[in-house]
């Protein structure tokens, strides 16, 4: 059972209260972008066996979106954070680096 802490209302929400929202920190390529950039955005996603940054919505609770860092292999959760950001916060990245020193992560 996956339990994520909702940073918006402070509840440790059960998976069944949440709605998944896919990969976080994607930059949408809109009108005016090149075909290559749009292809990269739409199809060429990284899908590592390991830590993912995901969007989740506390749908049956406060209804707000938030982000979570989670390993899809082991279901280990490294933390959740506000969705009002462009990149994962430092402490989440530090926690991942501490627990997974072998994983190199290229995040701005």
């Amino acid at each position, binding site marked *: 059972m996956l339990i994520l802490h909702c940073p918006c209302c402070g509840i440790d929400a*059960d998976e069944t209260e949440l709605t998944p929202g896919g990969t976080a920190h994607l930059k949408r390529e809109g009108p005016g972008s090149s075909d290559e950039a749009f292809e990269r955005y739409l199809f060429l996603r990284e899908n590592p066996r390991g830590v993912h940054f995901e969007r989740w919505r506390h749908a*049956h609770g*406060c209804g707000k979106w938030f982000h979570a860092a989670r390993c899809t292999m082991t279901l280990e959760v490294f933390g959740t954070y506000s969705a009002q950001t462009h990149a994962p916060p430092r402490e989440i990245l530090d926690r991942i680096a501490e627990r997974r020193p072998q994983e190199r992560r290229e995040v701005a």
Partner: protein
Amino acid sequence: MSDVATPLADASFDGFVSVSEAPRTGMISLRGDLSDTALREVCGAVTGAAFPASRGASLDGSHGVLWMAPDEVLLLVAPGSVPDSLDRIGTALSDRHHLAVDVTDARALISVDGLGVRDVLAKLTPADVSPGNFGPGELRRTRFAQVAAAFWMPTEDSARVICFRSVATYVFDLLCHAAAPGGEVGYYR
């Protein structure tokens, strides 16, 4: 004027706890900046209850303020005073971005009373309802079986469940089934 029909027509059920439709209560959904003093003051003026903290349920009798989300509260008032309350909110917040809607007839309110009320809730929701984690003064928005619902506990031995009117019968039947005689769990005693 035609008679007002409550969602469950005052249904009630006696199991190891009693389940019944609560008396019709006026409900106003208010969204805005909850840190705003004017918003907090008008909530207090309309309901007579203090403004709750995050995830709080601040009640004065059957009236009060329920914290629903970081930008949303639900006000419980007398059914007859809803139009007047909306006027007062509109006046107090006229220069601020906000939304106040009468949802009295869009929600159903169910009372669950008796020893073992926590067991009945725990059968239906993934929320932690253990005494150390949830109690009077708090509100929990969550899921009851397949639908969204919220609940709070006026006392240790009673709970109020609020859900959408369209699923009122479903939630009422769930609670009755969970409270059926012979279904006592006795875990939270």
